[in-house]
């Protein structure tokens, strides 16, 4: 069993901007250097590299720049932006199995000044494959397909636009405490939200993630080794991934398939978790993830968020405490992982007092980790 044998020993990120002025490779390398320093790990101890399949910096380029002589474990996971926790799962499994000692998970992306996910630049298929059955009718970006699923789920479970808006308001309040956040200095009220234009109905402007240039990295190693630095570490109590399941119900997220495995592996219940990060490409999926992971019953996620339950200030279960993809930056799950580590180490700008268990989802079910203070 993986339980707490491996830890995230260090995290690193670059500044977040709309135009980084440097290559995606440089962004990744800068984040990696910062993460190694944070972990107290010498660069030549790194023997593993893992990346998003959509990341443009191949492990060979990273290894050459880092001066690595021994790349014992590498790989990528396909899909799109939603594989961060799945990569952590694979990296932790490799370390736990003794196949690598120190694995770096990295992401460097010019998501605003370069190829834009919000326009389908990366995911568009030109009418090929499954795109033949969706793109000719205007389903051209991830947003279109997810809006379609959202509309049906709102219809079946009664989730309202005001509840969705309160996700954005909650995250913005958290971003207003986080100097790294894109929207650090801009407030958002529910009236602002409901008055904002539709992008793809039912998604209003502030229900949609940012587009960001930036880099992020995580350093994983054994908990024993991580502790040698003397710094606080985030132990991986449980980690799991879940691929596409063709037979699931239309409104289900992948969390329906992942959650039972994750909770069984962790040996804890949702009510034991102190703080939660969720992949918020679009605001309603925070509500759907809270429901499908079992933090609340189906249909109760909207009322929970609407009543302030996800707020750092007074909420029962603070969610996306850095501002998330909606208000901090869109680093495709990397910023959720970094914030989850910070919460476990007691270093967040919206720190949950005494947090022991820090939950991170990076794809509404594609992957999730439960981090424990250690």
């Amino acid at each position, binding site marked *: 069993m993986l339980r707490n044998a491996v830890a995230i020993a260090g995290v690193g990120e670059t500044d977040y901007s709309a135009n980084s002025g440097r290559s995606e490779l440089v962004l990744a390398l800068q984040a990696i250097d910062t993460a190694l320093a944070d972990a107290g790990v010498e660069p030549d101890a790194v023997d593993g590299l893992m990346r998003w399949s959509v990341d443009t910096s191949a492990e060979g380029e990273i290894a050459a720049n880092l001066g690595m002589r021994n790349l014992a474990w590498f790989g990528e996971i396909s899909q799109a932006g939603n594989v961060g926790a799945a990569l952590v799962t694979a990296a932790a499994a490799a370390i736990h199995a003794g196949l690598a000692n120190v694995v770096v998970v990295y992401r460097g992306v010019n998501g605003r000044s370069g190829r834009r996910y919000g326009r389908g630049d990366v995911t568009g298929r030109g009418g090929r494959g499954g795109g033949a059955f969706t793109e000719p009718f205007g389903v051209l970006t991830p947003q279109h397909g997810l809006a*379609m699923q959202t509309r049906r789920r709102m219809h079946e479970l009664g989730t309202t636009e005001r509840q969705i808006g309160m996700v954005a308001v909650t995250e913005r309040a958290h971003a207003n405490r986080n100097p790294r956040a894109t929207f650090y200095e801009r407030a958002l009220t529910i009236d602002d939200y409901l008055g904002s234009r539709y992008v*793809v109905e039912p998604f209003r402007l502030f229900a949609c993630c940012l587009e960001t240039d930036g880099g992020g990295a995580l350093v994983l190693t054994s908990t024993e080794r991580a502790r040698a630095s003397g710094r606080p570490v985030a132990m991986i109590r449980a980690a799991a991934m879940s691929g596409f399941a063709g037979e699931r119900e239309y409104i289900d997220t992948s969390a329906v398939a992942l959650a039972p495995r994750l909770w069984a592996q962790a040996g804890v219940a949702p009510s034991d978790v102190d703080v939660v990060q969720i992949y918020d490409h679009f605001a309603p999926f925070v509500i759907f993830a809270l429901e499908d992971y079992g933090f609340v019953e189906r249909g109760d996620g909207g009322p929970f968020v609407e009543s302030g339950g996800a707020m750092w200030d007074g909420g029962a279960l603070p969610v996306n405490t850095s501002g998330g993809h909606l208000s901090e930056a869109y680093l495709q799950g990397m910023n959720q992982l970094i914030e989850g580590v910070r919460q476990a180490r007691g270093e967040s700008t919206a720190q949950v007092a005494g947090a022991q268990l820090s939950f991170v989802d990076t794809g509404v079910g594609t992957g999730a980790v439960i981090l424990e203070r250690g």
Partner: protein
Amino acid sequence: MAELPLPVPSEDNQPFWDSLRAGELRIQRCARCGTLRHPPRPMCARCHAFEVEWAPMSGRGTVYSYIVTHQPIHPALVDRVPFATVLVELEEGPRITSNLVDVPPAEVAIGLGVQVVFEWASDEITLPLFRRAGAAPPGA
């Protein structure tokens, strides 16, 4: 003006597009166990048979979900917004992504009854679109 992508048929779904070009909506059906599936796939997920039939549909269905694109986040939508896309549940069960030819975006709703129409797009491609059920076909 950028155009919406046209479907690029593959050897695993060519009969679907051939049926549309002939003015029919046919959905893939497992020749062994009879399970309908869409979009087409080579293998039946239920019994693993590769043998398929192409079953004619009534063309009747209801709107199962819908979206309205307001901001032209893709170049192909610049001159089309607001632009509704619907997910139609056919009365035989399968769901198919499409557009409505005679319903303004503000009037699209879950549960709306619809009927297939065939829209010529190129010599190779005819698209399955939908109109309100009971309405006269456009141009009739």
